[in-house]
């Protein structure tokens, strides 16, 4: 003897595999996406998220390849030093030795200028006349 509930459920027990399939499908498609969303504490727009995933599913390999290419390009840029950009290099500050050498040269040059007679471009400095006795030595008496 069975209750009406038992009779009704037993009568339809054979449909359970199909119901299990539906349950699994909902779990995988809908609830799988929702659980990922809820972990990130994002409010339930997960239905749309699942739908977006379904939309992108046929292109998953293309998207993966694109992502991989971008990563390779990025890695290449990071690894290669920056040489292509023209950079005007500042001249390095001269070392103390070089400075000392330059100063020495300037000194010598200055000495050289003082020793050598002044070129004709410059008017001669007026000199004081020689004494009369010295002037008569080289000249005939009249």
């Amino acid at each position, binding site marked *: *003897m*069975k*209750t*009406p*509930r038992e*009779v*009704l*459920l037993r*009568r*339809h*027990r054979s*449909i*359970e595999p*199909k*119901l*299990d399939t*539906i*349950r699994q*499908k*909902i*779990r995988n498609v*809908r*609830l*799988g996406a*929702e*659980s990922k*969303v*809820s972990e990130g504490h994002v409010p*339930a727009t*997960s*239905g749309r998220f699942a739908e977006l995933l379904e939309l992108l599913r046929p292109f998953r390999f293309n998207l993966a390849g694109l992502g991989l290419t971008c990563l390779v390009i990025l890695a290449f840029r990071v690894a290669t030093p920056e040489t292509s950009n023209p950079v005007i290099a500042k001249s390095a500050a001269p070392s103390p030795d070089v400075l000392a050498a330059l100063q020495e040269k300037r000194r010598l040059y200055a000495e050289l200028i003082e020793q050598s007679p002044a070129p004709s471009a410059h008017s001669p400095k007026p000199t004081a006349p020689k004494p009369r006795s010295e002037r008569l030595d080289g000249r005939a008496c009249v």
Partner: protein
Amino acid sequence: MACNEHLPVQEARAGEPDAWDTLFKRYQLPLYVYVFELVRDEQTSLDIVQETFVSASRYIHGLHEDEKFGSWLFSIAHQRCIQRWRKQNNEETSVEEQGDNSIDEADGPLDLLIKKEQEEIFMNLVHQLPLPQRSVLLLFFVEDFSLEEIASITGAQIGTVKSRMHYAKKAFRKLYEEQS
């Protein structure tokens, strides 16, 4: 079926797939039975069950009393059945029978114990009932819902549900006695 059973509704609301699995597994067959006995078509019934589960997972946040998950789920399924009926222009009670609040719920429980050889008779009797009465009786048989819960599921007034239940039990008892 028991009101005391603990259902992981809170966990399901938090989005845990295992909780949903438990809930769906608990209700999938009773829900299917209810829907099938109303629409009498296997594929349509499976579609309605799937749509019901999807809706439930989407709108769980609208359920404020966790212990009413069962009646809430059946109310979604019931609405889906009505939509199908309207689409297919099936028999539908457009004229609401007069609710009768004077009908006492204690008009005798329908304690039935069915022998194996009487199961076909029982099923035929269920199918002979008009849809509104069939709906009420099925909800009572399958999940032992109270009159208030059945009113909530079917969207009818409590008096109307009482009336339907009264006449359903009466008709059922009469037919059952005649045939057995």
